[in-house]
């Protein structure tokens, strides 16, 4: 009797699994069916973000879904359940085994992905990266903009808030994240050139927020307590500036300490409107997702990729190779959000 009960349990469990899975497959068919005219409808292009739950990548997924609806191609997003380099590598290994045609990846930690991306390229899969300018094993890497210019742009915003003077430091997601560090470097270089009255905190010139709002908040609180003279924190990841803003608010330093950096409009409407943060900068992850796929399609079609490439996506209509690189392509995709325009983005 007991054995039967146990069997019933397992059967029920397996039925749930099968039902969920069936539901999934049906949906794919509905979306791709009926558009048999594109000759390459069988192409399977997968976007692998850093994780599946981060709002940044949820927004990227909207772009991916839009692209699927517009073109009928079999494109979808598949990320690890947590921001972890090992989990991300395993998702890619599984995709290689599933023989997809192209992988578009936003690497958690570029060096950790080199072996698995090499495997993908050896298997004839097209590899497109985003925010991974240091990757060796990819066909192309798309950046929304020139990293130094964007860093300088964040610095302009921070300097404007700080009145062009005072002590500041920089915050990155991880010190291994290539883009975040290039922005920070670009920001510092721009400050040295244009804002001589500002000074970088030499004891801790770069802190890590681990791409996590709570960590950013804790780090900012520690910094502000340890260095009372600190007047500005330049954020890079989309969690930095909002986390720092929380610390500024909590310590009662609004109007005395400032932050600037990347941030999502909907998550930051309140801090922008209340004046804790004057302006945030960003590019649209949905468009970046689309641009990666569009580039993958071009590579799959065997088209020539050269300076001035037009992907037909806003901000990615005139891509240029980064100086000295034949892999990294840069667009002009940055935007500023402030109290006035924060509600107009719709995400």
């Amino acid at each position, binding site marked *: 009797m*007991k054995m039967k009960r146990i069997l019933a*349990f397992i059967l029920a469990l397996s039925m749930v699994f099968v039902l969920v899975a069936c539901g999934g497959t049906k949906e794919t068919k509905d979306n791709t069916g009926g558009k048999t005219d594109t000759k390459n409808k069988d192409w399977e292009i997968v976007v692998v973000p850093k994780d599946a739950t981060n709002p940044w990548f949820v927004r990227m997924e909207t772009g991916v879904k839009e692209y699927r609806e517009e073109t009928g191609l079999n494109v979808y997003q*598949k990320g690890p359940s947590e921001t*972890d380099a*090992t989990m991300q590598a395993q998702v890619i290994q*599984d995709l290689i085994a*599933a023989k997809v045609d192209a992988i578009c990846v936003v690497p958690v*930690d570029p060096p*950790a*992905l080199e072996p698995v991306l090499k495997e993908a390229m050896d298997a004839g899969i097209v590899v497109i990266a985003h925010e991974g300018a240091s990757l060796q094993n990819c066909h192309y890497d798309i950046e929304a903009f020139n990293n130094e210019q964007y860093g300088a742009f964040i610095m302009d915003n921070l300097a404007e808030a700080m009145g062009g003077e005072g002590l500041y430091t920089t915050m990155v997601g991880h010190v291994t994240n290539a883009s975040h560090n290039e922005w920070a470097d670009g920001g510092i270089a721009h400050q040295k050139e244009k804002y001589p009255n500002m000074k970088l905190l030499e004891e801790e010139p770069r802190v890590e927020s681990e791409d996590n709002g709570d960590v950013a908040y804790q780090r900012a609180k520690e910094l502000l307590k340890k260095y009372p003279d600190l007047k500005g924190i330049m954020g890079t990841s989309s969690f930095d500036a909002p986390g720092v803003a929380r610390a500024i608010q909590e310590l009662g330093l609004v109007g005395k300490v400032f932050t600037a950096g990347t941030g999502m409009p909907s998550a930051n409407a309140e801090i922008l409107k209340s004046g804790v943060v004057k302006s945030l900068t960003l590019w649209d992850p949905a468009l970046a997702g689309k641009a990666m796929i569009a580039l993958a399609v071009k590579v799959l079609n065997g088209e020539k990729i050269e300076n001035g490439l037009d992907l037909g996506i806003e901000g990615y209509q005139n891509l240029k190779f980064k100086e000295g690189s034949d892999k990294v392509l840069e667009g002009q995709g940055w935007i500023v959000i402030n109290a006035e325009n924060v509600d107009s983005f719709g995400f």
Partner: protein
Amino acid sequence: MNENKMSIRRKLNDFYGRDVYTSRLIIMLLVVLISMLILKPAKFFSFINFQTMVAQFPEFGLMSLGIMLCMITGGIDLSVVGVANLVSISSGIILKALVAADGSLPWYGILVSMICGIVIGLVAGVLNGILVAKFSIPPILATLGSYELFLGIGIILTKGKAISKLPMEYSSVIAGKLFGIIPVQLIIFVIMAGIISFLLSRTTYGTRIYMLGTNMKAAEFSGLDTTGLLIKTYALSGICSALGGLVMLANYNSARADYGAVYTLQCILIVVLGGVNPNGGKGRISGVVFSILVLQMLSSGLNMFPQISNFYKSLIWGCVLLIAMTLNYFSENRNRNN
């Protein structure tokens, strides 16, 4: 005819009854395999997919073996990921130091870095064992504390960055394939599983740690060297984690203090699902190996469904763990009633 049928049924029943946990896992394995056969036959049942899966599980499979040993003694080892990362970081540093001026790695480089890694794992394990056995710190606290310690050493050694640009020789040997077919990671796992299986079933050490796990006091009063046994067990767990770390180093060709942070819970899930009693004294390596296979197939299988986002993964694994423990409760009850 009828008699024949009866005896087959009885045999099946006997088999199921003799090792409920393993039989249940075999059934789960079949369920997953059949589901995949119906839903994604071409993608799942390809040679490359199975090759990928058996190359993926050794890194956390090895750590699970370590946790299993500790759990048989009634303890637990939460520091496995910390040890693995510390080992992969130190071996990474050693590898980089051994590279000759012309960028090539001497022939003994791989061996030296692996042996150093294993020794570091052994030392870390002995430290855990001493904390648990000599100072009687509860294993959960002792190993959680040492996890933080190993993590800290790792962060200091790397300054929080990843150790990368390692000589490709190491990665191409350890993450390579024997005869172009069998992943080397799998071979490492099979050898270690074989050694542990031998220790548990054929040596007095094995019998003793089961006794120790069943009743610590009784084992002590019957003259067993409990301190020595515990230190040996945690040391063995350290070696397993070290091997896991060496495999990780090869898979990612880089090392960082926080790689694989989610493996701790995943390994506990595997061990409990495999029928090892968290209170000690019970558990078989076959159960743990099947449980590793089930979870790996579930995980790779889920990655083949574009519509199932990976944030269901935690949910599914949580459910699997709770269901496994509930079922274990029922089977324990049946055993008691009989």
